[in-house]
């Protein structure tokens, strides 16, 4: 990351939301394109060392993006983003959910609501992503799932976490 670009990551436990803000050194139209065209999404969306592969894409209200994030062993993690409202090039809202390869949403896992906004910041662009879960129980389910996947426990930043939970 370029050191002068803003990056905020805020968890609000009482509202079960994550708010992520990030500045990019590019015009809003270009950043918007990177979020809303699958040939561009495929080039950045999965965190390293995973890669992104689109199975189907329809960026329209009521449409969805069905894609996989693929780890170096070739394991596919399927998801889909359903688009709810779209206001080019200011923002969009939708739902993120886990699916199988055919795109069927896993009913046992909570979906999160996402609200994306894009604003001019001089020659740069500021994006804000608000990820909300329906309830603290939904968020707990997602966390417990992560725990089952064998994450090691640490308590190094417990005090920081307690401060975060208070926010």
């Amino acid at each position: 990351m370029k050191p002068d670009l803003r990056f905020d990551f805020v968890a609000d436990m009482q509202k079960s939301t994550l708010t992520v803000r990030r500045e990019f050194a590019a015009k809003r139209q270009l950043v918007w394109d990177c979020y809303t065209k699958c040939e561009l999404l495929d080039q950045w969306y999965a965190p390293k060392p995973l890669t992104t592969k689109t199975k189907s894409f329809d960026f329209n209200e009521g449409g969805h993006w069905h894609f996989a994030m693929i780890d170096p062993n070739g394991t596919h993690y399927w998801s889909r983003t359903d688009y709810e409202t779209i206001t080019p090039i200011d923002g969009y809202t939708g739902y993120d959910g886990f699916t199988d390869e055919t795109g069927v949403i896993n009913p046992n896992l909570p979906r999160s609501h996402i609200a994306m906004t894009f604003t001019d910041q001089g020659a740069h662009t500021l994006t804000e992503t608000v990820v909300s879960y329906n309830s603290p129980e939904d968020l707990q389910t997602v966390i417990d799932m992560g725990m089952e996947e064998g994450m090691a426990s640490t308590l190094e930043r417990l005090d920081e976490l307690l401060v975060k939970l208070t926010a």
Partner: protein
Amino acid sequence: MDKYNEPLDTIFHALADPTRRAVVQCLVKGPAPVKELAAPYNMALPSFMKHISVLEQAGLIASQKQGRVRTCTFNPDKLAAAEQWFEQQRAIWASRFDNLDNLLTTLQGETDET
């Protein structure tokens, strides 16, 4: 929304209260008897026990009675899982945005050349 219907079984509900957060912070240092935990608060014991019970239901603490003394211990697993998840989410977003920085640089390079 649904504020009054929420079951009391999540760590988030348990930690939404300042008294309960303080109790957890205290127990992180080591087990303590309920009486000692309650001492700083101007609160009737039954009210304090309700807080202890919420923390127990959330799996954040456990308590055991020996003779007339009930001792509470901190259970780190639940909170550690939440912490790990947030750290993991942060790392995912940070890595994803780094990729996007690189892509934007490439795309702007292409535009400049044409």
